[in-house]
């Protein structure tokens, strides 16, 4: 399969794609694929050429995270998606808390803050963003109730010391949140009633006589407003490590094991017979780039450490409503919405400048 051989493909050894990793610094960090950078070379935007070089390959999916390779795009594009995933993909979170009674040891504002952090399982597509008037409607607000009172367990054994046995409701859990449907919500959220994704989050501990009674309003928001709205635990990328052995200066056989130990286990293979050293293409991507090998003078010139500038290994961990594989498409959607908004404004500016006889409004 073509993808299997991806890391060993010859184009990876294109020096223009390399960031050099030295002991104390990184070199050739900036990309050079701009028109005019190399004389007599055309680097202008060409969608067909881009499609030839560009590749996405999903490598690993779990119920909470996804890993994939994004190859052939500039760092500015990859970074845009990473930033959008963290700060601009919307989710639904508790925003307002109305405290009717709180006799727990936790003060109202701290408790309210904790409530805001609870990830909810609500698909944000089913809700609207609150407009500037802040008017709550059944389209933009979900109401939750929390009403828990701690009491003594009369039937607890005499010698019991565990609060969970001694008392009823010794812990307020996220599963105690009760959703109260309003308006058309009953039918909109049919089949998947809004609730915390994790039912076992301890919100506060209670003792007999203590009570919490609150109403919560959950709204749709984005991570740049408050980190609780961020749909991801992490969204990050790193560029592909590349280890290039120098054929003119092979690693001495008696140092092969030492050389191997300079890298993450599995990255360097040593031939058991000849003690010849080679890079394991499959595992090379796991290298942490600790640069340990560059500390040993006996290996000087044997190896070059590099990273492939346009080869991104994405790792996204979902937290909340989105399945991990839907997060990245969602970020693309947000990006395209942003582009469309700016484009509309730019076109308006254009027609304005043409309509006004080349007279542009200067502010």
């Amino acid at each position, binding site marked *: 399969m073509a993808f299997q051989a991806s890391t060993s493909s010859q184009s990876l050894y294109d020096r223009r794609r390399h960031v050099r990793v030295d002991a104390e610094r990184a070199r050739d960090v900036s990309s050079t694929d*701009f*028109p*005019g950078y190399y004389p007599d070379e*055309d*680097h*202008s*935007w060409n*969608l067909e050429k*881009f*499609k030839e070089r*560009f*590749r*996405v*390959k*999903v*490598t*690993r*999916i*779990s*119920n*909470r*995270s996804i890993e*994939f390779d*994004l190859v052939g*795009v*500039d760092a*500015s*594009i990859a*970074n*845009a998606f990473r*930033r*959008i995933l963290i*700060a*601009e993909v919307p989710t639904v979170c508790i925003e307002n808390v109305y405290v009717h009674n709180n006799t727990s040891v936790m003060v109202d504002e701290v408790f309210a803050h904790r409530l805001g952090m609870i990830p909810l399982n609500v698909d944000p597509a089913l809700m609207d963003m609150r407009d*500037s008037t802040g008017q709550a409607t059944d389209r933009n607000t979900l109401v939750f109730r929390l009403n828990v009172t701690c009491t003594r367990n009369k039937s607890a054994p005499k010698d019991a010391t565990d609060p969970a046995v001694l008392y009823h409701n010794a812990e307020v859990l996220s599963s105690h949140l009760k959703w109260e449907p309003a308006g058309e919500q009953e039918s909109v959220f049919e089949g998947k009633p809004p609730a915390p994704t*994790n039912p076992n989050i301890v919100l506060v501990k209670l003792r007999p006589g203590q009570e919490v009674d609150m109403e919560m309003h959950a709204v749709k928001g984005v991570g*740049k407003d408050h980190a609780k709205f961020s749909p991801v635990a992490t969204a990050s990328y790193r560029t592909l490590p590349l280890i290039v052995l120098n054929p003119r200066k092979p690693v001495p056989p008696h140092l092969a094991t030492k050389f191997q130990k300079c890298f993450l286990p599995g990255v360097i293979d040593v031939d058991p017979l000849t003690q010849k050293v080679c890079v394991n293409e499959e595992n090379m991507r796991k290298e942490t780039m600790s640069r340990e090998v560059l500390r040993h003078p006996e290996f000087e010139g044997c190896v070059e450490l590099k990273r492939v500038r346009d080869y991104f290994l994405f790792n996204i961990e979902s937290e909340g409503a989105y399945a991990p*594989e839907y997060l*990245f*498409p969602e970020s*693309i959607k947000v*990006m*395209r919405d*942003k*582009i469309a*908004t*700016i*484009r*509309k*404004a*730019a*076109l308006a*500016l*254009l027609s304005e*400048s043409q309509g006004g006889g*080349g007279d*542009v*409004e*200067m*502010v």
Partner: protein
Amino acid sequence: MAESIPKIRILKGAAPDLSAATFQIHDESHTIGNALRWMVMKNPKVEFCGYSAPHPSEPHINVRIQMYDNLSSLDALIEALNNLDDLCATIDDAYTVSLRKDKYEIWEEKS
């Protein structure tokens, strides 16, 4: 309400034919700024393109574009936006295809 802030303003000092201009894009950040800068720079008719986020507490970015041959920087901006959108669509399609067709490891993660 205060919905009068335009999405894009052309800042003072632009060339009358818009061959060199600074566009102030409201409510955007490095996310769009850097990606857009890269795409504008892909245009061989662009002499210079750079962007800045003037201050972290101001929700806008300034994108400066200077053109060769007295061409319009506004046209270059619009073209770059179109190209950027094409690029996003390409990535979206490729990702969907990979998700559907490629073989990948599926594993269970405890939470």
